[in-house]
């Protein structure tokens, strides 16, 4: 990468290469903070079956880390977050093509889980593309690429609702809790619950997914929101759903809430659930 008058040049080839590496790393190497979260959960879980299941998740991470079998057969939709420094110049190719080519390469031995047409469902795209790409332009001259392979289970139990301002915090809590209760074991608990509140419908949904990028255990920097996160986590863990929905007191490992200013008429709430195979890997170019 050469710097010319404050502009950093990054080649499409380099982007493709690192995206491919992220696809592999994310599907075999579970982050230590997830494994630590499982270990902490074993100590707190009162259901013997629940503890057994959590131990299996720890062992699974260890075996998958050897690189022969991925953590889960659902190697997911490739969701890619790009934090693009506004002084970055991408050369020798189109950014989105580079990302998709990286996914194509990185998923060669992983499952091809994408169908071309959601209505007819007849044609698998055969290379796990297209990726879902979210770009944020930021100050500076770096490109941060984060891959979050997103499985179907958690996604299928996610939801958005346009509440009324008069529904208030209680209405928000009820929506989130009802959604988690209805999901039961389907999203493979213990889950991570990402929440976006405010903005417009799509902004809330994106915030919910972005909130899942937070390091495990990190609470919102806004005190009221942090309290809401803890309160919801406790309520979710009182539902009795437990690991795999087979009963227990560890149903969720974290509730992460991001808020954004809202229209005076709206209270959008989005919930994006992730399963216990919570995968994300990043690199900064």
């Amino acid at each position, binding site marked *: 990468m050469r710097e010319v008058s404050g502009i950093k040049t990054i080649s499409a080839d380099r982007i493709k290469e690192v995206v491919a590496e992220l696809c592999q790393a994310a599907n075999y190497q579970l982050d230590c903070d997830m494994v630590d979260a499982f270990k902490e959960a074993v100590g707190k879980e009162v*259901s013997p079956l629940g503890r057994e299941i959590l131990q299996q998740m720890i062992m699974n991470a260890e*075996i998958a880390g050897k690189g022969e079998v991925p953590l889960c*057969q659902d190697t997911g939709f490739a969701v890619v977050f790009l934090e693009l420094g506004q002084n970055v110049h991408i050369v020798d190719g189109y950014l989105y093509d580079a990302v998709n080519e990286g996914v194509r390469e990185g998923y060669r031995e992983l499952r091809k889980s994408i169908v071309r047409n959601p209505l007819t469902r007849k044609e698998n795209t055969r290379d796990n593309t297209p990726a879902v790409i979210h770009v944020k332009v930021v100050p500076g001259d770096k490109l941060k690429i984060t891959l979050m392979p997103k499985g179907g289970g958690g996604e299928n139990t996610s939801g958005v609702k346009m509440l009324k301002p008069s529904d208030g915090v209680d209405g928000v809590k009820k929506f989130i809790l009802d959604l988690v209760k209805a999901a039961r074991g389907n999203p493979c608990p213990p889950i991570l619950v990402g929440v976006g509140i405010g903005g417009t419908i799509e902004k809330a949904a994106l915030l919910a997914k972005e909130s899942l990028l937070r390091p495990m255990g990190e609470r919102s920097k806004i005190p009221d929101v942090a309290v809401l996160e803890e309160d919801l986590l406790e309520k979710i863990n009182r539902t009795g*759903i437990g690991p795999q929905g087979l*009963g227990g007191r560890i149903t969720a490992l974290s509730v992460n809430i991001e808020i954004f200013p809202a229209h005076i008429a709206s209270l959008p709430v989005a919930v994006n659930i992730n399963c216990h195979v919570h995968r994300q890997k990043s690199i900064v170019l």
Partner: protein
Amino acid sequence: MMESIRITTPLTDEVVAELRVGQHVYINGNIYCARDSTHEKWFRHLDQGMITDLAVAGHIVYYAGPSPTKAGKVIGACGPTTSSRMDKYLPRLMELGLKGTIGKGSRSPEVVQAMIKYKAVYFAAVGGIAALIDKSIVGSRVVAFPDLGAEALYQLVVKDFPVIVANDIYGGDIYAEEISKYALD
């Protein structure tokens, strides 16, 4: 605490009658991977007369779509997918003699009633531990629909494949029973 039990496919009514909700079971023999598109195609071919017999009597369907098989391995990662998406197809399969399904997550009340009626069991496998259960799958081949990729109809040969009885033929339902046991409020 119930003793765990080892069973071998195909399953007879006698074996199914012994299984109780919450029991740890180790499955041996052949099981058949089928999921969303597999079932859709299966039933379309049956209804259009392209196949006359699904030949499921006594067998177990495993709701799963494996990742690609690497050189030297018998199968890719092959853990369970969410069973409720296939609820719509199960009563008819059980009417045709299917004796068991393996997946994750609870079934609909209608399907639970059908399992009692047709004397078939639902086994829960833990989701997201594909690397750990890999050693339980000792053989695989595509039986039909190779064009469906991960959703092809696979025959897996399993050895002590670990599952738990989620619904038995007596109305026992592990999700209903255990969740209410641990719920507070």
